Structures are given as C-alpha cells and as structure tokens.
C-alpha cells in the first residue's frame, strides 16, 4: 500500500523554461523573453505501477521532463508529487536521498564504469552512503544479473551493448525503487536487442510494482506499454 502511494505521479501546472541563447539579449524587458517553454503549465498524473511510454521529437523536452520527475531540476512554476512527497519542496540533500532509495534511472548511453565488474557496477549506488554493501544487497545484485543474463564478474569493456544496457537495468532496479525512469534505453541498440531489453525492463518493473516511464521514439517499443503519452508544445497528452 505504501509503495502504491509513493509511486503515484501527480504533476500539476508545471512550467519549465529553457533559456534560448540566441535570443536572450534581443527581447530585454519583455516577460520570459529569450526563453522557450518546454512545459507550459503542463499537468500529468499516473497511477502507481503504471508502465507508460513518453514520445516526442528530439528537443521537445523529454530529458528535461525526466530531470523534473527525478528531482534534478526544479520547475519555474507548479508542483511534482510522487505519492505524498512533494519533490519541489525537498532540499537538495533530501532529493539525493529520495533518488537513492525510490528512483531507478536507465540512460541511453548506459553510463557504466568500465573498470568495475558487472557486479561492482550494479552495487555502485550502495557506496554512496555505505562503506560496503550488505550481504542482502549483494545477493540481490547477483540475482538481478542472473535475471538479465550477465555474469557477475563480467568485464564491462568486453560486454556487447545489449549486455551493457542489461547491467544498467539491473543497477537501476537494485534498490527496488518505486519509480523507474528510462531515457531512450534502446536507442543505441539493434532492433532485436532493443526488444529484449525493453521486455526485460517491463517484466522486472512489473514484478516489483514499480512505476515505469520510458522515453522513446521507437513506435514498436512504445506500443507494448500500457499507455503512450506525447510531449509536444509544452503539453503532455495521451495518444
């Protein structure tokens, strides 16, 4: 029950602006001159455990929206709430803590650390607040690597791109986060591998009842999700 509450998204009336470098000095004196509204008083709500795809053209603000949802960036106006937690009201330290415990992130370029083994990469988030991971977390990391089909002691540098992304998925899910955000997780993979990784991500998130939001421009990948949302002209709309 607690998990269901914490994984419910309520994004209300959010204004997110992007400074336009080329025009910022031209329209001095006008309100918001030189800024583009990436989110223009947008609202969005998702139920806990939802698995949705977020689509939109390049530069429409998908990554910026993810930054808002992750508490990395603050909107100019509006509120972002995960369950009972108002992200915009948290201090920087509280946001760090929330991300460590409640959020899993998967990136397009994996962002693994090549001189750490697959297991050490998955366990990396535990080092942020502890000298060494607990036995339970170590066991879970090995279980997750087993589920994604990568050896625990595998050298990251010799893994294929698909395998690397699977390690990244295992890393994102280590702390059993209530929310998983995946920004173009399959964009740099071939079609078959992309399908495998997307399915794996959906299955694992469903098992632990995490809310999953995947930004993608791949219609095939998007079609497998519960719902597809489009981000365009600063608004989020369900397709």
């Amino acid at each position, binding site marked *: 029950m607690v998990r269901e509450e914490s994984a419910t998204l309520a994004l209300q009336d959010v204004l997110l602006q992007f400074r336009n470098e080329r025009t910022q000095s031209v329209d001095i004196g006008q309100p918001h001159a030189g800024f583009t509204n990436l989110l223009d008083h947008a609202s969005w709500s998702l139920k806990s455990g939802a698995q949705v795809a977020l689509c939109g053209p390049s530069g429409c603000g998908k990554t910026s929206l993810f930054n808002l949802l992750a508490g990395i960036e603050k909107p100019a106006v509006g509120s972002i709430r995960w369950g009972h937690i108002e992200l915009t009201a948290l201090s920087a330290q509280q946001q760090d803590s929330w*991300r460590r415990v409640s959020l899993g*992130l998967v990136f397009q370029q994996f962002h693994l650390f090549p*001189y750490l083994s697959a297991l050490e990469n998955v366990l990396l988030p535990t*080092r942020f*607040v502890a000298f060494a991971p607990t036995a339970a977390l170590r066991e879970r990391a090995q279980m997750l690597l087993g589920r994604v089909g990568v050896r625990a002691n595998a050298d990251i540098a010799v893994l294929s791109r698909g395998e690397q992304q699977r390690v990244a998925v295992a890393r994102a899910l280590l702390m059993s986060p209530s929310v998983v955000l995946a920004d173009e997780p399959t964009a740099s993979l071939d079609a078959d591998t992309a399908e495998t990784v997307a399915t794996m991500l959906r299955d694992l998130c469903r098992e632990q009842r995490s809310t999953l939001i995947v930004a993608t421009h791949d219609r095939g990948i998007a079609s497998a999700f519960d719902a597809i949302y489009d981000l365009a002209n600063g608004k989020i709309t369900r397709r």
Partner: protein
Amino acid sequence: MINTLPNPVPLAISELRRHIFGVVIIVLLIAVAVAFGIAVSASERALREASARAADRFDIVIGAPGSSAQLVLTTVYLQAAAIPLLADDVLPRLQLDPGVEYAAPIALGDSVDQYPVVGTSKDFVTDGSRIRLVEGRVFATRGEAVIGAAVKLMVGATLQPMHGSAADQLIDEHKHSFKFNVVGRLPKTGTAWDHAILVPIEAVWGIHTGALSGTSNGSQAEAHREQDHSAGELLGPPWTNDDIKGVPAIVVRVKSPVDAYRLRAQYQYRAADKSGGDSGNTGGNTRVNSGSNTFGNTGGNYGGNKSSESSTMAVFPAEVLVELYAVIGDMREVMTAMSFATQLIVLLAVLLVIISALAQRRQSIAVLRAMGAPATFIFALVWIQGFLIIGLGAALGLVFGWGGSVILVNAFASDIGFNITPTISYREWLLAASAVLAGSILATIPSVIVWRQNIATTLR
C-alpha cells in the same frame, strides 16, 4: 547498509586505472619534484655529519699561514694541495708543551696505487692508544707501514711508493726505490684515512732528502743497503730541530679544552700579525717561504726552505667546518627553495591537468549525482584521486630522493674517501608531507568545481 560512511575509493581507483598511463606520468613528475628537495637535504646532512665525524680526532691542526680551509681539507680529508712547510722548531716546541698529549706531523706527497702515503708518528696511528689495530702492529722502523681499512693490500705485502699521485695529471711522477713492508691494518673509520698508507715521518724525510735514495734514478743496490740500515733506527718522537726535514702540518691532541684554546692562541698566526694578515680564515695568499710543499704533487721540498720561525696558523677543524657548513647551508637553502618552487609548479600543472580532465568526466559525475550520490561523495571522489596521485608521488619522491642522495653522496664521498649512507630524517619527511599537504589543499579546487556542477545542464 553496514554504516553511513560513503566509500568512493573503489570508484576512485577504478577511474585512475582507466587512465593509468597519464596517472603514472603525473606521479613520476611529482616524485621527481619531491625527490629533488629530499636528495639535496639528505645529501647535505649526510656529508655534514660524516665530515664532522672525520674531524673528531683532530683537536687542533697547525700549519704555516695560509688558507685554514685548505689546511683542514688536506689533513683531515687528505685532499692534495700545495701548502707551505712549517719552521723546524715548531714540532719540537709543541711536543714539550705540558698541555699536549701528542703532536703528530702529517706529510703527504707520495702514493701507492692511488692510496696516499702519509708520513706521521706512531701516536697518530693509534690516536694515543685509543685505536687498536685490527691486524698486525704499528710500524717500528722506517721500512714499515700501516694501512687503512679500505686499502686493498695484505699485511706482509711490500709496497713501493710513487712520488705524487697517479690520479693527478700535474704530477712529477717517478717511483722511489725505497720499499715498505705492511705490518698492520687500522680499523674502519668511514673517513679518507681508511684509504691511507701510514708510514714513519722519518721515512718520508729520508726519501725526499735523498738520505734513503728517494728516486729510482739512484742505484738499486745502494737503495737496498740503505733499506737494511734504516731498519734498525729508532723512530721519534721526540724530535730535535735537526731531525726535522720539513713538516707541512701538525695534528695536536690536547689534554684539556683549556689547553686547546691556549695553544690555538699561542700558535695562531703569530707571523701574520707582523705582516698584517687576517685572523687565519682566508689567508690563502700568504706565502712565507719559497719552498712550499705540494701535497700529492711535488712533495720534494722536505728539507728545503721553511717559513720564518714563528709563522704558524692554528685551527680547530670543527670551527673551520662550521664556516664551510655556513656556505654549504646557504647553498642548501637556495636548492631547497628551488625544490619548493619546482614542487609548486608541478603541483599547479597537475591541478590544471586534473581540472581539464574533469571536463571529460562531467557527464559521468552528473550521472552519479542523478543516481543519488551526495555532493560530498563526489567531492570525496575527486579529492581522493588528487590525494592518491600526490601522495603516491610524494612517497615515491622519498624513495627517489633517498636513492638520489646515495648516488650524490657516493659520487662526492668517493673523492674524499668517505663511507656514508644517507638517511631520511624528519626534515625529509616534512618535505614530503608538505608536498602532500599542499596537494591535498590544491585537490579541493577541482573537488569544489565538481561539487558545484549543475547536473541538469550536463544531463540535458
């Protein structure tokens, strides 16, 4: 979690391993910069301590007026140089002084296979019975010799000295026909005297005045006859004025410090007072006789012209060394300042390299922050990397510095016959620690830059 202490070390090390070539270069740069200062400091101290040790047994050295530093270098460190001879009455008067335990003449000029042959007395060989020979006995006749610990000859060997030294390009080189039998070996002292061959002063006088057919130009048969004859003669002290055939320097062992100061005052530049010379430190230009003895080069003026009767210079070797140390100390200060400047330049260069490398790491650091890594974790990650590089460089610098000082000291010490092993003292530890401290402080700069990095901008 076991505890709440973050641990960026595994990640810090893995990132350093990723750039191992660059890291090794930077570590070596720091090590060389640190080693420079440590080598200078350790070498200077080792040489100073060893030279002070070497002068321990020389209470006072008396010579003809000239350079006090040269007199000390020649007698204590056996450095070949031309110094004038003393008047004949000085040694007999000294040996009668109630404050003198012994007064030993020191006469150089000959050599055997680059080992200097030093004419002296039995008292000097045993330092008034303070030294026990490790092998054999002290010479008892003109034809006998005692060798230093490092001389590669056996007791019982026969040696034939050569006039001058084979190592010197300017020598008037020829072999004496007079031969010595090695009858004893001195214990190791770690000084130039370990390489010396000590013979009776009477033998040196005899060779150089021709009484013992000093050169190979003479008849071999005559030389051998004189050799046999000399064996039965008694050796001094005491010596009379007539016995003395030239003494370049006299080493005096005193009975008390009071005697030392009295003798120094009594024999300190008495003739120079008449000629307006200085107080004995820099009188290198004072030539009181035309027949100066050139230690190691042309020592053939024994028995020739001497300085005027009262022309003497008395020095405390320790005091002269203090003056030399002052000069060396100034040089050390300059070298140390240079090494500090070098260290600072290298550390700043390393800092610039780390900061420019951060540009390439911006995204991975932003990813860590996005995953929930606290800003302190990132700060520590970058700081630890800087600290490891600088700490490793400083530690390696200590080792390099010690190795460098061994090479430096041995290169210098082999010239003066010293046997020195430099050590790392608190001063060198302090030098390395100061490099680590400076590096630790400088490493906070890139850490702060990373700490303040905007995650959203980097990830967008």
